[in-house]
């Protein structure tokens, strides 16, 4: 109780302090030459925020909606504080913007460049990532099934699956550009290669996860391979498969962006990042990174949401 009351008092105080610090750091006398006193103030704020946050996360309001709100507050405040630190350090210590731009600059750039960002997003995420992700995950899944269905192939396919597991992006990207041209299909192909292995390994492990008694039941019904697969083994494998989908959701994005370093039409998140780096427009680079982070997190969140619905019975969702 004590802890949470302290949190309720401390949180607004910390917020006020942060606002004051932000104001201070942007004033010409402090920006780039913040003194010891300023940093001491920041450290105090840090401590206050840490105490406030841990108190907040222990808060258990009776009301369900309030509880949801509290649950949402913690990560948001945590993130906001990270951004605050970033801003204060970059501005206060005068870090050159070519190394690390301030969040405020990035935000400004983000808003100012929305049309460009949208075009890049469509090119990279919608075209390359989504198509590559779907094909790659499907391919990994299907190969796992084939390997499972045909024991003879299993011992041949799985080692070969391992073989393609680490085909590095920078190796395959130029080849894919050569084969599939400059536009998004070559990036999608890179994503396919990158997402294939996690899905393969996880599906194989998932298909082996069903217990003996559950198998015996199917056996006693003389259920065929496919019936057993659909009614028993796939449900049991779902938690594994969703792990792969989650891992791949971020991997696909990295793959597509990196692949654009190796030849692309003049649009795309990777293209923008690579050219803006050399133009030293790090604020634009970080605006693209922010876009990638937002898109990736939403993508991941959707996968996690579907997972919760599909594997509600798994012990990890039963507290």
């Amino acid at each position, binding site marked *: 109780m004590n802890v949470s009351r302290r949190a309720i008092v401390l949180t607004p105080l910390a917020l006020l302090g942060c606002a004051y610090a932000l104001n201070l750091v942007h004033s010409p006398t402090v920006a780039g030459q913040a003194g010891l006193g300023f940093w001491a103030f920041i450290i105090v704020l840090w401590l206050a925020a840490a105490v406030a946050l841990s108190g907040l996360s222990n808060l258990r309001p009776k009301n369900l909606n309030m509880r949801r709100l509290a649950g949402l507050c913690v990560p948001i405040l945590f993130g906001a504080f990270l951004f605050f630190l970033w801003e204060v350090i970059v501005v206060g210590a005068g870090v*050159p*913007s*070519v*190394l690390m731009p301030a969040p405020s600059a990035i935000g400004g750039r983000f808003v100012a460049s929305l049309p460009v960002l949208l075009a890049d997003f469509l090119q990279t995420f919608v075209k390359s990532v989504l198509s590559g992700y779907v094909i790659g995950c499907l391919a990994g899944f299907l190969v796992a099934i084939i390997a499972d269905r045909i024991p003879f192939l299993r011992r041949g396919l799985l080692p070969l699956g391992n073989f393609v597991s680490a085909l590095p992006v920078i190796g395959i990207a*130029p080849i894919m*550009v*050569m084969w599939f*041209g*400059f536009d998004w299909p070559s990036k999608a192909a890179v994503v396919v290669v990158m997402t294939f292995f996690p899905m393969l390994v996880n599906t194989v492990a998932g298909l082996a996860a069903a217990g003996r008694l559950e198998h015996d039941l199917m056996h006693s019904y003389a259920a065929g391979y496919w019936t057993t697969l659909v009614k028993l083994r796939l449900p049991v494998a779902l938690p594994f498969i969703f792990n792969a989908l989650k891992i791949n959701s971020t991997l696909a994005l990295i793959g597509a962006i990196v692949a*654009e*370093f*190796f*030849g*692309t*039409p*003049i649009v795309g998140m990777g*293209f923008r990042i*690579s*050219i803006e*780096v*050399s*133009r*030293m*427009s*790090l604020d634009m680079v970080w605006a693209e990174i922010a876009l990638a982070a937002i898109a990736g997190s939403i993508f991941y969140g959707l996968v996690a949401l579907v997972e919760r619905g599909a594997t509600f019975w798994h012990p990890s969702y039963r507290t």
Partner: protein
Amino acid sequence: QADKVTIQLKWVTQAQFAGYYVAKDKGFYKEAGLDVTVKPGGPDIAPPQVIAGGGADVVVDWMPSALAAREKGVALVNIAQPFKRSGMMLTCRAETGIKSPQDLKGRTLGVWFSGNEYPFLAWMAKLGFKTDGSAGGVKVLKQGFNVDPLIQKQADCISTMTYNEYWQVIDAGFKPEQLVVFKYEDQGVATLEDGLYVMQDKLKDPAFVAKMAKFVAASQKGWDYVRQNPDEAAKIILDNDASGAQTEKHQKRMAAEIAKLLDTAGKGKLDPADYDRTIATLLASGGDSPVITKKPEGAWSHAVADAIK
């Protein structure tokens, strides 16, 4: 006690940077009382970023990218310009029927970005071709690291360097008469390549200027040596290439071609006329994100060159 100097190159170890490797290998730096570390670059390395982060004392960069960095707050100053001429050109397959720059209209062109696109943009602006993919312009591809797009016919023309990619096209079975080349020098849009840049505030320190003077002089000695012994320079490059991927044939040719671009008269001292021409080209490049928006001030200095005894 030798002075330590770290130089960040713009690209991987190859004869393009032979002067520095030769100076190190032949002991020119040592004679000058310097202990030099040469850091090779790569597609992922932006020399201005490295120098701003304190990773190098001096960097090799192309002027457009250096000036872009300067506008973004990394106060780079050109202290020497060993390369007098630009080696960049656009190489087209003759069979496409391209004969003059006017024929480029509507074609697919491979262009290097990463700061190297400005001369191209300036040229297109001069020709009146749009580069944003709209009708009546040219179709631009961000070219990768090699000449495959030309060979695979994915592009009609690609960017090449006289000392490197052009020969890769030749090696791929093209005869010179099957190619049409447009040198940026000839098109009047050449920009300065491969200059030496340092951080502006460091130049206030006379000791640093003296050290750089020693460095530039010793490097120049290296370049002179390259010009006279291109084959030996190529060997030195091969010895220093950690990737083990370079071939002797290619590096010898590159050293020979590089020699043609070097400044022989000014001994690496930047000619303000070349500088002005580069600025003019860049200011003409237009587009919605121009590399520089105004004429830069103090972007070059003869302090180091003048300090050379």
